[in-house]
């Protein structure tokens, strides 16, 4: 397969510069990832998990890759400085070097800096790549090329009063560029905090982003993720998230695709000890010829864990929305309580929505529900709103906004919630 070979050739011919300045163990795993990619190849639509995302086609063609830091125009900040601690990544590279410590004691900054620091290198070495599945080709591809990213560490008992923002900004002037980044979040016992991850893009050139995020949530820790895909139509992202939860931990994820770019995102949670709780809310809005493919997998590996997921999507014009959900319940994960819901709105005759909820249960004392619906806007509600003076367009928009609100309301940060609502409204204007 030429594309895979191109990528591997590019890796081999730049191997020294890619790994420059990074620890030996970091680069050794890079070559493991390359071996894995070589073995598995890039997924095509023939593979179950990538049924609706042909990654091989996505990365086809000529792409530039830069292995030395470059200057990019700085984007406008998303949240005021006072409201968030921030890690800004430009095409996968941290804009500021080094690590910082928040007032509450959280450590945050560049993954590269953490991997190289005497203090945090052992932690990064221990946890990085420990949750991710290198058998997944895009995850291996990202790992093969990654040079930087974000690192967040919440020591035991730390309670954040404001969110930490990982602000990803992708920029290509004219040429097509491929870039990669990885994030590692470690929350020790009883830590609490919110992490917001945003993906934004600018420029005339096409961009393809490979992103992997790993999170290790210690026992009794409570971590809330908000992830926003606000990409231009010429920017595509393949984002794989892996979360490992310990006993009595709680992790919630809210993600929204309000941009126009191609999104393939997977959220994998492993509940490895008793009484862990996972909540996921996801929303995608697609118009034009856009594509959004969400994969959710929750693995119940210990008894008495609970998981809930709600995925809502709306597809208009010629767009394609896809959701695949998997709840896996291991043999000894008794008294599992798992709920998985997918609600979709088909807004045109030519749009397509695929929903594939799946359960795989090996324990006998469990409560698992799943459901998926694909419907249309409620004509009665539109008539009702028009009777009060709203135009048909306004009524349709308001109804979709209401549909989206179920997900959007789960963003913990008020300003971010408002920002997402505005992006949702703006997206609906474009749809």
């Amino acid at each position, binding site marked *: 397969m030429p594309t895979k070979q191109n990528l591997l050739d590019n890796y081999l011919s730049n191997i020294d510069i890619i790994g420059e300045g990074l620890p030996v163990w970091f680069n050794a795993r890079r070559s493991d990832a390359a071996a894995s990619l070589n073995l598995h190849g890039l997924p095509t639509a023939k593979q179950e998990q990538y049924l609706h995302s042909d990654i091989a086609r996505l990365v086809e063609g000529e792409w530039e890759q830069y292995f030395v830091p470059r200057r990019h125009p700085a984007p406008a900040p998303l949240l005021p400085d006072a409201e968030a601690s921030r890690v800004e990544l430009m095409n996968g590279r941290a804009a500021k070097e080094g690590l910082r410590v928040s007032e509450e004691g959280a450590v945050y900054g560049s993954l590269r800096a953490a991997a190289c620091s005497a203090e945090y290198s052992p932690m990064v070495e221990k946890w990085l790549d420990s949750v991710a599945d290198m058998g997944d080709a895009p995850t291996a591809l990202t790992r093969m090329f990654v040079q930087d990213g974000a690192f967040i560490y919440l020591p035991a008992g730390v309670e954040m009063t404001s969110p930490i923002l990982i602000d990803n900004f992708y920029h290509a002037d004219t040429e097509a560029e491929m870039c990669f980044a990885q994030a590692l979040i470690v929350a020790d016992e009883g830590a609490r905090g919110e992490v917001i991850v945003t993906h934004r893009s600018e420029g005339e050139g096409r961009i393809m982003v490979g992103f992997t995020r790993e999170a290790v949530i210690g026992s009794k820790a409570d971590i809330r993720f908000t992830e926003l895909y606000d990409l231009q139509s010429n920017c595509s992202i393949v984002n794989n998230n892996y979360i490992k939860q310990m006993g009595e931990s709680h992790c919630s994820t809210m993600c929204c695709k309000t941009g126009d770019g191609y999104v393939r995102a997977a959220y994998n949670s492993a509940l490895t000890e008793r009484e862990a709780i996972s909540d996921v809310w996801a929303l995608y809005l697609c118009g034009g010829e856009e594509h959004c493919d969400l994969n959710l997998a929750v693995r119940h590996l210990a008894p008495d864990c609970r998981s809930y997921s709600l995925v809502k999507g709306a597809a208009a014009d010629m767009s394609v929305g896809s959701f695949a959900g998997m709840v896996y319940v291991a043999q000894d994960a008794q008294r599992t309580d798992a709920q998985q819901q997918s609600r979709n709105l088909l807004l045109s005759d030519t749009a397509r929505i695929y929903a594939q909820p799946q359960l795989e249960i090996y324990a006998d004392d469990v409560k698992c529900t799943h459901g998926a619906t694909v419907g249309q806007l409620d004509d009665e509600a539109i008539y009702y709103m028009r009777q009060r003076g*709203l135009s048909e367009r306004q009524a349709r928009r*308001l109804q979709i906004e209401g549909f989206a609100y179920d997900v959007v309301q789960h963003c913990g940060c008020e300003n971010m919630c408002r920002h997402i609502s505005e992006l949702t409204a703006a997206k609906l204007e474009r749809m």
Partner: protein
Amino acid sequence: MHANVGGKEILRGINLEVRAGEVHAIMGPNGSGKSTLASVLAGNEKFEVTEGEVTFCGQNLLEMSIEERAREGLFLGFQYPVEIPGVTMSNFMKMAVNEQRKHRGLEPLTAGEFLKMMREKSAVVELSSKLTSRSVNEGFSGGEKKKNEIFQMAMLDPKLAILDETDSGLDIDALRIVATGVTKLHTAENATVVITHYQRLLDYIVPDYVHVLYKGRIIHSGDKSLALKLEAEGYDWLINDYQ
């Protein structure tokens, strides 16, 4: 005026004139076409007007879209108010009020003015202010839904309000509150058409005219005493006469 739904003629020649300051009650047995009349006037696209014309304040109503009719001052109180998940009452009303103001060449209300208006108008039907921050009609009781209709009527101040069985499903107290609310909103400049099965509503909303609709036609009109007679004797005497 004649109107069809799915090729079946439901309204078979309605003649009705409503002037400013008047209250009309429309009664009639089930299936006589009362709700259809309300829907046709509101512009519900399920119905097709096959003959006749409707003039509203000098304009051809049938040429207007649903929202144009609403912005010109026609209000329909729904028999079954629709639930709209995720859309808050206050957001919905703010858009509706401002659309109607825009149509009349007025500036949109400021947030403060709007809140004040919400408070004043929700008092008309004793609607809890908690409900206005919830999603439209979602989880509202039957009584709350109907109060909410009249609250919206108060917010939008229509020239013509058509209330389709606003009294159905209401307990005695809620009926009094809703009906008193409608009466409070009545002025010499506006008009109300109430569609009802029961005379009890008309104790509060005193009609100038009572019409009986049967098989898509108004077969009899009278003053408020007609409603009392219908309550006592039913429709048979009129239907027999008509046939």
